[in-house]
């Protein structure tokens, strides 16, 4: 188990290294010069003042030292506490870290329930569908429809139908205009009301995939040799289903890790459609305003987040699958 997690850890460390390095390189080696753009946007007529401003910003963003030192500094600032992700140009002079932390709760409030609930409900539905033919005939086509639906389309349909036609839910922002964020019933109520549609758009699409996966896996397990064997031994169907379900869970847990990136994608477009102030919207703002430092910060955050989630899922996997604990498969090369 230690070996298994150690190996995983190595992959994650390498991934982090590569991601951070690429992330650091992009604004420096890609076409375009963010600082010059910033200076030219300030619209100074005096070239001397412009030069001074350029120098000021280069110093501010740490671009006035040799490139290798910038790289080391970058790592250094990441490992300082609190991590220093630089200063946003879009929302100058706010620190990128502040902006990210401000947007993060909204994204998590969408993502965590959407991922876990869709996983739970989807698996439940899938397992049920595998058992009942009648249910299967409805669940399966609906699931395929859902999983084929692009996130943005569902989001648009929800805005149009739930927000405009029915007027049941607000279709943009995270809370009503007459509120200030605070810990009060009215604020949380408003938050919840604004959360429903974007959550649904993420939840529904992901749900379909899990349901299909679970249904197929359970059927596969039920048809497997050990199930037949158990059946031949006279084991009650309940027991066989229990085993099948347990075994089918394993790939679904691994799938959770792989699914993370997909839901993240959905999250970006959903936030755009609903004008929901999370990381996705922030990311798009960073792109449209060519705020490279903010972009870097968000990407770094997302990458680390994804790595942590992967690692957590790996640990859960170890906990669920006894084979990894004994190192039975971890050693196979």
């Amino acid at each position: 188990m230690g070996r298994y997690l150690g190996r995983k850890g190595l992959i994650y460390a390498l991934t982090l290294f590569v991601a951070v390095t690429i992330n650091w390189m992009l604004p420096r080696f890609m076409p375009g010069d963010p600082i010059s753009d910033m200076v030219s946007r300030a619209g100074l007529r005096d070239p001397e003042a412009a030069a001074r401003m350029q120098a000021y910003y280069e110093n501010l963003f740490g671009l006035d030292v040799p490139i290798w030192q910038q790289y080391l500094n970058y790592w250094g600032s990441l490992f300082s506490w609190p991590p220093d992700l630089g200063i946003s140009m879009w929302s100058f002079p706010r620190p990128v870290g502040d902006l990210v932390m401000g947007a993060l709760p909204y994204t998590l409030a969408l993502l965590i329930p959407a991922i876990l609930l869709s996983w739970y409900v989807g698996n439940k539905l899938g397992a049920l569908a595998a058992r009942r033919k009648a249910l299967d005939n409805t669940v399966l086509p609906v699931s395929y429809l859902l999983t084929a639906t692009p996130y943005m389309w569902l989001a648009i349909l929800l805005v149009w139908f739930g927000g405009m036609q029915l007027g049941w839910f607000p279709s943009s922002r995270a809370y009503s205009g007459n509120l200030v964020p605070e810990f009060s019933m009215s604020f949380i109520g408003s938050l919840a009301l604004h959360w429903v549609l974007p959550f649904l758009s993420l939840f529904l699409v992901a749900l379909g995939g899990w349901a299909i996966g679970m249904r197929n896996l359970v059927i596969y397990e039920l048809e497997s040799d050990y199930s037949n064997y158990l059946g031949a031994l006279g084991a009650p169907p309940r027991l066989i289903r229990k085993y099948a379900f347990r075994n089918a869970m394993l790939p679904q847990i691994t799938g959770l890790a792989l699914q993370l990136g997909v839901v993240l994608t959905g999250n970006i477009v959903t936030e755009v459609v609903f004008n929901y102030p999370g990381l996705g919207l922030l990311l798009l703002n960073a792109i449209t305003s060519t705020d490279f430092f903010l972009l870097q910060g968000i990407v770094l955050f997302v990458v680390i987040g994804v790595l942590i989630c992967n690692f957590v899922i790996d640990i859960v996997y170890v906990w669920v699958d006894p084979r990894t604990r004994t190192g039975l498969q971890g050693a196979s090369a």
Partner: protein
Amino acid sequence: MRQWRRFLVPLAGAGLVLAACTEDVTDDVADGENVDEAEDTDDADSANAGEFPRNETVYTGGAEWGTYEDWNPNTDGEATFVRGFLYETLFWFDPWEAELKPWLAESGEWIEEDVYEVALRDGITWHDGEQLTADDVKFTFDLRDVPGVEFPELDEWLDEVEVVDDLTVRFHFSDPRAGQWDNVLYDREIVPEHTWGEMDREEIPEASGEDITIGSGAYEYHSHDENRARYERYDDWWATEHLGLEMAARYVVDFRNESNEVAMSQILQNELDLSNFFLPGINQVPEFGESVHTFYSEEPYMLSANTASLIPNHDRSPTDDADLRRALAFSIDVDDIVDTGYQGIVEKADPTGMLPLWLDQGFRDDEVVEEHGFSYDPEEAERILDEAGYVDEDGDGWRETPDGEDMELDFIVPSGWTDWELAAEVIEENLHDVGVNVVLDFVDPGQELDPRRDSGDYDLVFDNQMLLQNHLFAQYFYLYELPVLDEQANRDNPHRVENEHAWELTQELARLGTPPTDDPDDDERFMEIVSELQEITLEDMVIIPLWYNGLWSQVNDSTWTNWPSDDPDTPNYYPTTWANEFMLGGLMTFTEIEPAG
């Protein structure tokens, strides 16, 4: 599975609570002090600091596209309402009458050829109770030499600011540019010396100003986050006593929005009272005319805010040829752009590029326009091209330059700006029709458009920086400002025209007040210059004015009524929250609105 359920269901809610908590915390950290203060000054009936009763709150949006981070009135790009609500200017400008109206100043006049005297109103206090005096005015204008402060060139022609007494300030000019000075008078916010003066002068442009939002205006800073800024009424506002003005709305919340379509749904759902977004199609929604209104109830629906023009590059061949520019002007069907691109919510521009305000003032020289003007006439365009030697010799369907070289005009268009994309496509068709090969180059608005326009890396580009301002000099500054730098970053003269004579005239124009003034000679000279500039501009076809971008403004009167409109029963101020136009009537709009019902 049972334990899973127990585990998951609370988790769904946990995310939301987490969002609530974290927001709460960041908010406290960011502006805790101010929130406390607001609570302190609140009356006892302030029920809940975190909630703004709908009927006491005005929701606005459309001015903020960045974030609410810049609370510094001394620099450009401040957050919405920093100018006007928090900090105020000495005058405001009424575009209907084309004249300055006193605001913090009781009066202002040229007492000598190069001395302007301002008398302040008595009894104006800052939000913290301190008196607003002539010293604050002097302090404000003495910042003019600090790099990065607004009006960087003011230092070149304003010599000295003299405090005569507590309420009187005299400005001594080395070059009395009366017209340009008026611009400063309604644009520059007066800041309190006792807060901003504590800072090192050089640091002032870099300060966020978030911790010292003490102004003199009708509203106080309440709180803000990335997406909205909140203001609360200041009940001891001087204008109540002096001018009898009152703000009906206790709170104003301004929203930054990600996109126009979001604003559209918000104005329809009464989540915005005043929207200054560009909302194409607003005149076609079922709510239009019911709860949703624009300034005019029919075409052109919007007031005009600036002139959108096609900018040819004078520094590059072949667009450096006036004949070609003239042919382009004749070949563009602006009506098509107005009708389909904008569905009639904008107006076709006058060939002089003058905003309706100046046309109404009678500054257009009809004779000049008659002789040198242009209109959509493709045959005339072809005639000009043929005559100037732009003919298709090699038979590929495209005209070549008189030198016989292939001609392909590079037209850069900001991608994603749908109205401009559409307009560009119309122009593309129009030019193709007369045999001119133009290629639309859709570029990233932030990353590529600005740098390329500023550095002159284009043949054709749209621009709309001919803005609604107090004086015609601004238009000709835009057209002729010299010298042309490598980077024309201050947005003037992006077409890189070099016309010394026109620039001389423009500078002279800036020294004259808008007629009628007290001096008939000046007025006559003003008209002369304006005529000559119109003639030069049209003859040389410096730029091609196309349409007036609207002062986009849509209101929902479900909660607040008496918004400005062309209806004689309502006020007729310019209803905008845009920072640069707010002192053109935006502020007055808020003094007029009334609760509905």
